[in-house]
């Protein structure tokens, strides 16, 4: 039925089930990640909602400018400060708010404030007491995104969110994939080792490989050797058996990339699986420092290690599976020769520059 009659009928109080549920109702997003005994994250509140609560529109012209908003930043921080508390297993944590900035969401601008808190001990469950905006908008909802689950905050009553251990393993899988993809040195190392696989030594001279099967077999050997090596060092350093200074590890990794590239130019070692294993040991130390930076939780060490390693293998498998058919496809072309020689030379130079930089860092 209809809305329009509303205007017609006396007081303008609308009748209808206006079928048009337009725009979006008021939501705020609280994203939190728990990392040992600290909590970090961000709170996004719609600028329009903050205007409703605090009157940001200084001149009342209906336009909230950056000048008006930034001037109100301390007032907004004070407002949030009174209305958001975080706790761990019933004990309050010390919460801080960072400087706000603007985030554009699908329904307009939000004021995004970094949130951090330190707790007495690593929380098993998170307590959130949130009371923003409910007093001016009964349909406001806080959406707390914690450890892969979303909790709807409908009113000021505190909620208790149990932190699921399994999701954190999944999170580490993701970190693993991220790391191998973002960590260009691991990709280059592996690529350099795989690059000559489609161009094999036959008795005396080198020639394009005849069968994809042979190529796959060799790539499989290289990848397995690399995986075994870096998994071993990842585990022994993550559990604290061996600790190497990160400057040394990072420099050595860069040198290992240079070595793999130079080997393509000089053809010193033919058994590239051996290179993959020997130098792969270094890369495991690199992975473990990432894992430690992520705040490896001691009570879920196994899950995190497994998850992270699985993520690394997945990310690595994705690269290899994408790369090998392409290389095989172009193995007889000039493009492949250019890639092999110029590419390896380029990587060797780049990696040596890295090792110099990292040594100095």
């Amino acid at each position: 039925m209809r809305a329009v009659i509303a205007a017609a009928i006396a007081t303008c109080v609308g009748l209808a089930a206006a079928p048009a549920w337009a725009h979006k109702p008021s939501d705020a997003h609280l994203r939190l990640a728990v990392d040992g005994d600290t909590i970090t994250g961000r709170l996004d509140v719609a600028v329009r909602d903050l205007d409703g609560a605090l009157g940001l529109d200084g001149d009342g012209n209906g336009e909230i400018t950056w000048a008006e908003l930034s001037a109100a930043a301390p007032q907004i921080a004070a407002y949030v400060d009174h209305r958001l508390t975080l706790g761990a297993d019933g004990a309050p944590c010390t919460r801080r708010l960072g400087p706000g900035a603007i985030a554009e969401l699908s329904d307009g601008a939000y004021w995004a404030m970094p949130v951090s808190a330190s707790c007495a001990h690593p929380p098993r469950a998170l307590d959130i007491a949130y009371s923003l905006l409910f007093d001016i908008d009964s349909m406001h909802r806080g959406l707390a995104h914690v450890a892969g689950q979303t909790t709807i905050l409908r009113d000021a009553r505190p909620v208790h969110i149990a932190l699921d251990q399994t999701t954190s393993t999944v999170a580490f899988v993701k970190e693993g994939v991220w790391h191998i993809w973002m960590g260009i040195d691991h990709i280059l190392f592996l690529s350099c080792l795989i690059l000559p696989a489609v161009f094999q030594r036959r008795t005396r001279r080198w020639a394009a490989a005849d069968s994809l099967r042979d190529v796959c077999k060799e790539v499989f050997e290289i990848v397995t050797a690399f995986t075994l090596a870096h998994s071993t060092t990842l585990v022994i350093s993550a559990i604290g058996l061996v600790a190497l200074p990160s400057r040394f590890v990072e420099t050595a990794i860069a040198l290992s990339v240079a070595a793999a590239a130079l080997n393509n130019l000089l053809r010193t070692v033919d058994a590239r699986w051996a290179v993959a294993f020997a130098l792969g040991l270094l890369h495991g130390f690199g992975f473990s420092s990432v894992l430690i930076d992520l705040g490896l939780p001691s009570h879920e060490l196994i899950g995190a290690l497994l998850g992270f390693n699985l993520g690394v293998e997945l990310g690595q498998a994705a690269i290899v599976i994408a790369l090998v058919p392409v290389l095989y496809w172009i193995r007889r072309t000039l493009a492949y020769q250019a890639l092999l020689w110029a590419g390896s030379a380029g990587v060797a130079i780049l990696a040596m520059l890295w090792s110099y930089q990292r040594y100095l860092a």
Partner: protein
Amino acid sequence: MRGRRKLTVLALGAVGLAAALTAAAFVAPDRAAAAAPTYLPADPAQVIATVPARDPAEVTARQALAAAPDRVELAVELARGDIERYHALSDPRYLGRAQATLDRWWHLAEPPADVLLLRATIEQAIHQFPEARADLDQLIRLRPDDAQAQLTRAVVATITADYAAARDSCRAIARLATPIATPIVVATCEAPLDAIAGKADEAYARLSRLVGAARAGDAGVRGWALTQLAELAAMRGDTDAAAAHLGAALALDPEDAYARNLLADILMATGHTADASRLLAGREQIDSHLVRRAIAEHDLHGADAGKLVAAMRDRIAAAAERGDRIHLREEARFALAVELDAARAVGLARDNWRVQKELADARLLAETAVAAHDRDAAAPVIAWARTTGVRDAALDRLLSRLDRADRVEAAR
């Protein structure tokens, strides 16, 4: 040559697998965790958000209410302003604000009469029809001569298929001596009731006579009457007349979302999909417009189709995230026409039928049941059509298709 083809297949498969592995690792954990990037504008004059310009009278009233929180007349005035803003801007935020202003009385079993009316209006807008109905019944016991209460009650009772109660309220308005209770209002109130009782022809004749006679009249009432007239015309299968009435209603008020949706539906049903899309272009902030435009562009394979479909998926996800289920009608249409998921669509249409029972809801449930080959799902609509005696060109077609399918099944 064969080896090369094999290799191509292998290569494509491998790239696909790699992409799938990566996508799974990134997407599976939680999509919601991705926070939007932040920035600091360089220009102090940059407009970050627009809100309704400040109304000094409202500010004064808010201050007065803050000083004396018991003054219900101030709260009612302020809440009314927010509900007006909701209607003008189609922004649901203002419903929540109106409710918050009335918070002190909101949970009372017997709030003051003015609060009852506003509470019912808000409940109706968020599809809490039983709650709205209870409040309106209570209000009418207090103020039987309140035309607005009777009209709202007629609307809610029609939506929930309590036609006797709706008829009572329409007749009560006819007996009132207020300026609101004109013959055209009464006829428009009764039109959907007559139509559902199988008397669309008579209702159409009566209402078009009144609309023709009252050339001047209140624009709001006239627009409402024209839309009802269009519904009656569509039920009789006269889509040209329906489109003409809706065109007239939109000329009176271009912001009439209900009329615009109805016209778009008629255009789409008669094969004028591109016209429907044009009619809705630029108004996608309203979900009911967005869903129709997404369906139209999807059918046309238009340039905007991907963007619109993605936007609709986002809105559905956002509503689900905050636990809202008032999008059932839109969601069911979208599931059927775009996601091609008839099973899901019929489930949503069935849930929607539990909430509201207008003709559009009946057509939707019948249409999704046909698509899903699920005659049982349409059983409530078949029963409803039988008890009411409703005659509607589109619904009749759908129900006879269900019947045919049933007979084929039985013959086997």
